């Protein structure tokens, strides 16, 4: 018979604290399985010799989240109206931007984060894309994720295009004139696309509200959906080893017959007992 020692007071207190913390988590887990899901998402195995370059995707995701959060807050103060303010004779949209930048508490910071973060997001997407290309991580079975990534990049550029008009100053206006007319020179459907983007024959109030809606609702929604798919595939297919690695994780084995391609995933050597770690 084992001797059970009476737990000390500190042990009891610790046990109580643990129960207190675990109770809501257990409650959630029992009803949704979400705790396990998050654990599965965050604490998954990756190749042992993973590289810092492989954090660029997460960095791009973080940049997107910064854009989303600062954008939501900017939308609380921004007014997408091309009408002229009778008191000052200036366009309302432009005045609201001036108000955010010069008068509202920390407005300069949040707008600055959104403005410069936009470039950071695009640059990080390109760096991530370069990493995936140079590591050969786009190869079978990850081609689809490359395609989804390209769509995210295109959507990000559309965010840049639509967001550029919103300050409604001369730069914004004429850059959008040129950008829309550039679309208009595409053969056959170009003129129709340009008129759809303008919401009419000339850039005006409808163009501004339209770009605002696209910029803050339509395209971000599409990006969120695409990022979800992108991450799903990352989790399903796993992370690739760097090309210099002797670890074969995620790489096409040369000596394996093509019939081995029948499944999406294949046994990863280091996951087997006695395999390379």
């Amino acid at each position, binding site marked *: 018979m084992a001797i059970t020692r009476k737990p000390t007071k500190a042990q009891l207190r610790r046990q109580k604290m643990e129960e207190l913390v675990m109770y809501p988590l257990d409650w959630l887990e029992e009803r949704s399985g979400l705790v396990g899901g998050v654990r599965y998402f965050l604490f998954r195995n990756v190749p042992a010799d993973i590289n810092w370059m492989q954090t660029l995707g997460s960095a791009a995701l973080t940049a997107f989240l910064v854009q989303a959060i600062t954008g939501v807050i900017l939308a609380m103060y921004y007014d997408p109206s091309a*009408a002229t303010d009778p008191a000052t004779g200036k366009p309302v949209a432009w005045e609201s931007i001036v108000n955010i930048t010069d008068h509202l508490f920390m407005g300069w910071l949040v707008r600055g984060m959104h403005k410069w973060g936009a470039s950071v997001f695009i640059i990080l997407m390109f760096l991530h894309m370069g990493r995936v290309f140079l590591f050969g991580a786009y190869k079978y079975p990850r081609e689809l994720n490359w395609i989804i990534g390209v769509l995210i990049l295109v959507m990000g550029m559309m965010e840049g295009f639509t967001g550029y008009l919103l300050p409604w100053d001369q730069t914004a206006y004429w850059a959008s*004139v040129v950008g829309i*007319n550039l679309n208009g020179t595409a053969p*056959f459907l170009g*003129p129709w696309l340009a*008129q759809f983007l303008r*919401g009419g024959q000339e850039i005006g*109030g409808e163009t501004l509200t339209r770009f605002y809606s696209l910029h803050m609702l339509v395209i971000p929604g599409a990006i969120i959906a695409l990022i979800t798919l992108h991450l799903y595939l990352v989790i399903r297919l796993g992370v690739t080893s760097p090309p210099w690695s002797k670890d074969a994780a995620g790489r096409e084995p040369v000596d394996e017959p093509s019939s081995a391609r029948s499944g999406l995933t294949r046994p990863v050597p280091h996951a087997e007992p006695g395999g390379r770690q």
Partner: protein
Amino acid sequence: MEPEQPSPDTEQESLHEEPHLPPPTLWPIGFAIGIVVVLVGLVINPELISSIGGAIAIVFGLLWARDATAELRGHPIVVEPERRETREAGEGMTAPPADQQGVALPHVPETAVTRSRFLEGATLGLGGVIGGVITVPVAGFMVLPGFLSQKQHKVDLGPLEKFTQGQWYVATFVVDPTQGEVSRRTAFIRNNGPAADPKTKKSVPSFSIISNHCVHLGCPVQANGPTGSILGMPTVIEHTKNGRVKLDPVVPAGYGCPCHGGQYDVEGNRVAGPPVRALDRYAFEIDNGRLILLSIYSVSHVVGTGAQAKIYKYKDAGPGEHVDGPEQWLYPLNPPHH
């Protein structure tokens, strides 16, 4: 129809033998209707309608109270269970032994429309119809207004006398006063003086009115030459129904675009840079001695100058679109313009 299977469970069986509880009473609904009538009556006719509503509420309220207190008063309402004749479990449903005749279950061909397959199809089909009924008008609302209801705007630039004959002006005006300053446009205007109409041979005023939208990508072209203050000529400001119209005298040697360096001569012909045709022009009319701008048309090139210029006109095309030569076939159909 599957017959109701009697449960072999005796405990279940005994449940059926117990007297059933009464169904939920309907009296509260009558009571609620009475209250509604009272409230409506308060708005319409407090004396008559509200009294009727009150009566309804009281009657149904009493009935409800009578029901609710039945047990307390020792008069429980008992509903006898409904009884039906039942068959023995599986009676007449036994499958023949597999080695005796045919298959135990009727064979359902793959192509047969079973109930589940029909329901699957119906759900998908109905869902598609509902989705279409919602999506089509909404998508139309998103796309079509930009193409339909595009109004033609007439722009009043003021009396003809303001335009000195042979002098170019940089005119700025609001095309659509309801849109305000965002629809302010610029045109280069020259009064060519009276000229013979080619058809009627009558002497009519002639104007060259060139839009300042570069036909490369739509930037505003500038006049290459001195303007008002340098020339020592006054800038004309007028107030018409198109807002403030400004006429700034200019002596252009041509027009240049600041964005990508397109250059045009004084009649709007392309001389250098990326533009694909000559600058667009405004049609015009003279109404009661005033110059009225009409819609824009595109021009491939202009031969000659002033009133004698031969203008090769085309339907209004977007910047960067060829209107002549083989490249015009890249843009066979433009959206409707005014």
